[in-house]
């Protein structure tokens, strides 16, 4: 079986962890990435990574509590087995990263330090300064480099994934990819393909994501028949620095370390923030959520900020901005714990947040939805789903391996297409309707390490190796992509053609206005009509560069078409989900409706219409009973305001 190979597409945390795990199992890995893997978007993650730890455990925390929190945070939309397994494994993930040399912050005695994060009352977030994602990515990058120098991993950096190759039975047996420098298109054979291509922030124009996070790769799989789950679930992070090219994140760790969100009580107050006395500041999160305060989950904080600014016009100077304030804290402490993100603010906003409150506003941040995946249940099968877990209660199940998912089962995190897997942010598992801060890094690495074994097992035990697939299948697949490529190049002569950058910008504006913080049916209908218009214009797109060498316009133009198709699924699933749950907030259906919508939305691409056929499928939830998600909000909600999406 020595000629067996696995392709991993994407070299962020999920892709690198998968590469390491599969290579370790003795199978050759071909690793594809649009950027040198060390520059993947995971490098941006700031705040930290969650796991139960000994200190928290002695205060009553447990892996099971982490599990319960994650489900509650996600408003019970996630399939439960994978979440149980992930949280049970979390401490092992941290230990392994520690062994790989991640410079986690340390206590005086030399143990790993911990911080508070949203959605928990316990310190369970491990961190390396305020650049945790960078440090974790580098550790996995280093291990991958080690395998690479031993010849077990082959990197294809600056290669763009274009399509999966499916054999006559619909099994995934390889990919088609393009060298972004030479523009060569070719197909690659593999016994299994792992997609680890991250999120789709660019569909919304400006987001906290890197410039390559278009979701193009996921969209291409979707167009080849892979299902897409909970497309409508997009996280808007409450605290980002608005910018011309992107919105730079101000990590939740700023609040975890004591940052407070406020606006002047008088919106006409023109004083410098430092000159506004305590009594004339409105700490609206602390007032409304006495337990969690500034650390309510992201969708809640985002809606409150949105409410204060957009509905009440109580933002700073009446505009769309609130203060995130650290200036009451010791500057040296801040430098030690948050140096990286404070520098970002200083660099881009020109003020020192150690002394001046930061001005922030919400921005699109994370893709909870994604490629639909399945799994094999684990050993924990309670007779009835458990009620809420409270600290100190007896733990229903010990955190041993295999309780939530069967370790090594060949279908773990496999899509509906045999042989095609989805790991990390690109899948829909784990985070339901909202992701808790510092759970993403965990889910990415967990996917790679835990489900990497599933891929290895599937490959080792197959009776249909890819080496038996006729070459003609691969040639046909690469020919199709080559034809598309030629067709794009041919548009250059078309003088009245449309500009892809303009289309992408309009799509971003429309999607942000209609399909993020506040949604309504009519506004989403309007959004779908706008997407139709954009798709029609896109069919007349004109390339601004015909170079046959290093043509970035072509890559962007192609991705724009794929983003439009994904955007349609996001808006349509949002329209059909007539309830509010987690990040999905419909003013025309303000309550959670478990009877109709405690379900996964599954989008299937319809090649005839070019659009999504959306169905709602039951959530696999045998472990915990859903309960209302309130985070102990005080006082009855102030008389329902008619929040409206932008531009309605």
């Amino acid at each position, binding site marked *: 079986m020595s000629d067996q190979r696995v392709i991993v597409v994407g070299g962020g945390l999920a892709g690198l962890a998968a590469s390491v*795990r599969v290579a*370790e199992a003795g199978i050759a890995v071909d690793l594809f990435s649009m*950027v*040198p893997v*060390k*520059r*993947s*978007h995971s*490098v*941006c993650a700031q705040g930290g990574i969650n796991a139960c730890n000994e200190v928290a455990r002695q205060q009553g925390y447990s892996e099971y509590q982490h599990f319960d929190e994650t489900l509650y945070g996600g408003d019970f939309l996630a399939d439960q087995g994978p979440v149980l397994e992930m949280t049970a494994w979390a401490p092992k993930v*941290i*230990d*392994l990263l*520690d*062994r*790989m*040399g991640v*410079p*986690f912050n*340390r*206590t*005086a*005695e*030399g143990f790993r330090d911990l911080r508070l994060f949203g959605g928990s009352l316990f310190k369970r977030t491990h961190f*390396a*300064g305020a*650049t945790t994602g*960078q*440090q974790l990515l580098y550790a996995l990058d*280093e*291990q991958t*480099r*080690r395998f690479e*120098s031993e010849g077990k991993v082959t990197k294809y950096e600056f290669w763009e994934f274009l399509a999966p190759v499916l054999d006559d039975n619909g099994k995934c047996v390889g990919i088609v990819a393009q060298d972004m*420098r030479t523009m060569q298109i070719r197909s690659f054979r593999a016994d299994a393909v792992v997609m680890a291509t991250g999120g789709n922030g660019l569909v919304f124009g400006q987001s906290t994501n*890197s*410039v*390559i996070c278009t979701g193009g790769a996921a969209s291409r799989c979707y167009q080849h028949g892979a299902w897409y789950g909970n497309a409508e679930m997009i996280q808007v992070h409450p605290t980002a620095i608005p*910018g011309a*090219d*992107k919105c730079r994140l101000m990590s939740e760790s700023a609040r975890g370390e004591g940052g407070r969100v406020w606006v002047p009580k008088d919106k006409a107050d023109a004083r410098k923030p430092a000159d506004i006395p305590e009594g004339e500041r409105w700490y609206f999160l602390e007032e409304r959520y006495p337990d969690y305060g500034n650390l309510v989950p992201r969708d809640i904080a985002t809606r409150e900020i949105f409410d204060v600014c957009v509905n009440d016009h109580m933002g700073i100077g009446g505009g769309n901005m609130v203060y995130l304030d650290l200036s009451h804290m010791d500057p040296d402490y801040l*430098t*030690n714990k948050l140096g*990286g993100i404070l*520098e*970002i603010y200083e*660099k*881009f*906003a*020109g003020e020192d947040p150690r002394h001046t409150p930061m001005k922030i506003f919400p921005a699109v941040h994370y893709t909870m939805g994604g490629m639909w995946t399945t799994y094999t249940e684990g050993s924990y099968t309670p007779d009835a789903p458990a009620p809420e877990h409270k600290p100190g209660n007896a733990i229903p199940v010990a955190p041993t391996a295999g309780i939530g998912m069967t370790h090594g089962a060949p279908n773990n995190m496999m899509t509906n297409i045999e042989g095609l897997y989805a790991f990390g942010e690109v899948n829909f598992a784990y985070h339901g309707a909202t992701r808790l801060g510092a759970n993403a890094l965990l889910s990415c690495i967990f996917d790679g*390490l835990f489900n990497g074994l599933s891929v290895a097992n599937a490959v080792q035990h197959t009776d249909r190796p890819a080496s038996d697939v006729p070459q003609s299948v691969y040639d046909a697949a690469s020919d199709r992509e080559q034809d598309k490529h030629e067709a794009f190049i041919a548009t250059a002569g078309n003088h009245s053609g449309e500009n892809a*950058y*303009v289309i992408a910008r309009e799509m971003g504006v429309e999607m942000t206005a209609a399909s993020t913080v506040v949604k309504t049916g009519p506004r989403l209908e309007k959004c779908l009509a706008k997407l139709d218009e954009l798709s029609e214009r896109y069919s007349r797109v004109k390339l*601004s*560069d015909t*170079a046959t*060498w*290093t043509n*970035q*316009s072509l890559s962007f133009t192609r991705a724009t078409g794929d983003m439009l198709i994904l955007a349609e699924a996001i808006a349509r699933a949002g329209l059909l989900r007539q309830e509010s749950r987690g990040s999905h907030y419909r003013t025309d259906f303000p309550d959670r409706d478990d009877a109709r919508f405690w379900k996964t939305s599954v989008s299937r691409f319809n090649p005839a219409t070019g659009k999504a056929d959306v169905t709602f499928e039951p959530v696999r939830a045998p472990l915990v009973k859903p309960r209302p998600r309130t985070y102990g909000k005080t006082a009855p909600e102030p008389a329902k305001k008619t929040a409206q999406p932008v531009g309605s």
Partner: protein
Amino acid sequence: MSLPQAHQSTLAWRQANRAKAVPGRTIVMTVRRCEGPGKLGWFESFKIPVEPNENVISCLQKIAANPVTADGKETTPVVWDSGCLEEVCGACTMVINGTVRQSCSCLIDEYAPEEGDEITLEPMSKFPVIRDLWVDRARLFNSLKRVRGWVPIDSTAALGPGPKEDQATQSTRYAISECMSCGCCLEACPQFLLEGDEDAWDSAFIGAHAIAQARLFNLHGTGKNLAPERLDELMGPGGVADCGNAQNCVKVCPKGVPLTESIGAMGRGVTMHAVTRFFKGK
């Protein structure tokens, strides 16, 4: 950790320029173009209307959306490399007005505050150009292989935590571990020269970033098991002795990586290592 030196020295200058930045102005961006490896380069200028808080990348995005030069000629979009847009991925390094730096953190309000001000963008000169501002930094990553920049763990099996670490060592390692492989230190180094021939990479000067990485792993409880191999590499051709101690590197490093301190430490390590080897007769 404080602000990197390069930024600290210019903070006042930056704030002063920001304060005087003229709203609604048009600036000139002059870009060194090149169609591909081995082709001749030329300059093209673009007029760009800018808003507050723009950076070099947002201007390049505007050029991509409308590739017309200052004198009205249609041209191709400029090719460049970028990723995070928040100075943490290392992708977007360029030579801007003659000095190497990240372009995503290069703010127009600071560099071109007045009407008609010009900003010049060129690719790094120490790496082969792929197209326009995009260069091939494969050699930089190869250097990380040369110093065995990893901790040799047994496997990914659950084997408990890593070695305990004191806060001082953690903060030294963290500072080095922030290196984002951007290449600024290499562009600025008089000893690091353009080398297109891959076969020559393993004996050419390895560069400040890789010397620092060797130190990073030698400081780790398990990483130090490969210290002899790392020191062997740094003793060899293109190793730490090739550094002329010009200290240009540390001045341009956007992450404030303690480069000269690390070069010093590794220089001493190599000397000790040579002495030990001499007495062991190896």
